[in-house]
């Protein structure tokens, strides 16, 4: 009968918590930079410049139809032969940004397309200023449209980011790997690491739901 040994995991808990903090930082940074990529690509897709649209479409299809692990291997091991040498941490961030950008583009585009020209015209007819139109007629409904998809994409990103441990970038999963190879209590280490991930994803989705309730309370017209 196997004897569970959680003592070394408890002793190394601070390492795991530091790892969890690194995962949160990495995910937030990737989300913010990824959003910039998404907004740019969404603009490019609606801009009507055909070659730009092709490039963006190709980018989205390639990223969405290949595994994240292969993307990160390509960036970390493949790019140095083109002269771009990255540390594990920056390769991890770059891979996450590139990956998020492809998924974010479709979300942002849906947000842009949810605003009809007639609504802006109605705002002008009501005598709203440009700033008011931007704030109440464009931003708030658009944000409400993208918010649920964007927040669940963030949680998905945070869970996916565990894969960066494969190139030994610093995050929670890597902290788990280090603790595992120091203590050999593999199952115990990974059960605790998994629980921390679970707490983080449940925590974030609770916070996101609270924000949604507070910020987008007004009723839908439909």
């Amino acid at each position: 009968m196997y004897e569970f040994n959680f003592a070394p995991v408890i002793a190394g808990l601070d390492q795991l918590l530091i790892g969890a903090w690194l995962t949160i930082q990495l995910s937030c940074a990737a989300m913010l930079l990824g959003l910039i990529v998404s907004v740019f690509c969404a603009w490019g897709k609606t801009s009507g410049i055909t070659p730009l649209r092709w490039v963006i479409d190709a980018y989205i299809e390639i990223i969405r139809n290949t595994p994240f692990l292969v993307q990160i291997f390509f960036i970390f091991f493949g790019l140095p032969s083109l002269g771009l040498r990255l540390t594990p941490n920056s390769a991890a961030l770059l891979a996450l940004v590139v990956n998020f950008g492809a998924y974010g583009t479709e979300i942002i585009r849906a947000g842009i397309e949810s605003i009809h020209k007639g609504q802006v015209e109605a705002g002008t007819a009501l005598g709203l200023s440009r700033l008011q139109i931007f704030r109440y007629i464009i931003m708030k409904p658009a944000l409400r449209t993208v918010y649920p998809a964007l927040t669940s994409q963030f949680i998905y990103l945070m869970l996916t980011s565990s894969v960066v441990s494969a190139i030994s970038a610093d995050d929670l999963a890597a902290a788990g790997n280090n603790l595992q190879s120091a203590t050999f209590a593999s199952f115990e280490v990974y059960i605790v690491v998994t629980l921390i991930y679970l707490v983080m994803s449940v925590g974030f989705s609770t916070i996101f739901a609270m924000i949604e309730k507070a910020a987008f309370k007004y009723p839908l017209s439909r």
Partner: protein
Amino acid sequence: MPLIRPFGWDEFWIIVIAARWTIALSVIAFASGGIGGLFIALARVSDTKWPRLIATGFIRIFQGTPLLMQLFLVFFGLNILGFGINPWIAAALAFTLHASAFLGEIWRGCIEAVPSGQREAATALGLRYFNRMRYVILPQAAKIAVAPTVGFLVQLIKGTSLAAIIGFTELTRQGQIINNATFSPFLVFSTVAAVYFALCWPLSLLARRMELKFSRATTR
């Protein structure tokens, strides 16, 4: 034989052919995950509380934790249970559980998307839970489910790449092995990515087309 050999057609083919293990693992996970997913979905919409709670918990755990950790836990967990270190069994079991949870949640949505009048009519006709599901709800839900299920299959195929990390020699792991021998990471991982793309892209297009067709057929 030299220590580092060039990346030629032989190496290219070794990688392409390794896709069979990716396909095999995906098929196993999809087939057994489909059976598991059906049970999870049915439990999730059950009239009794306990199956519903257990299914919800199962789905939450698998959707709220990284696939990589699920894989590690099954891998090391099976060792604890005395099955030894076996990447094949670990990967098949982990991906089956993962697919069960995700397909269960997708199919629950499809079952609930069947208009409630259908369930009420079936109940009024005297059909109990089993026959109601078998003859009325599931056939209609299946039609809704096809597109998102194909979409999940793409996720699953991509997900099987993580099995490389526990030493299962599929497409990605084969790429790593060839890369260690040829040291041409750019070519190797481009090839690996291209093979995944060739597997996933047609499925993605199919899912999108079916979704479009379905939404056209159902919008009034």
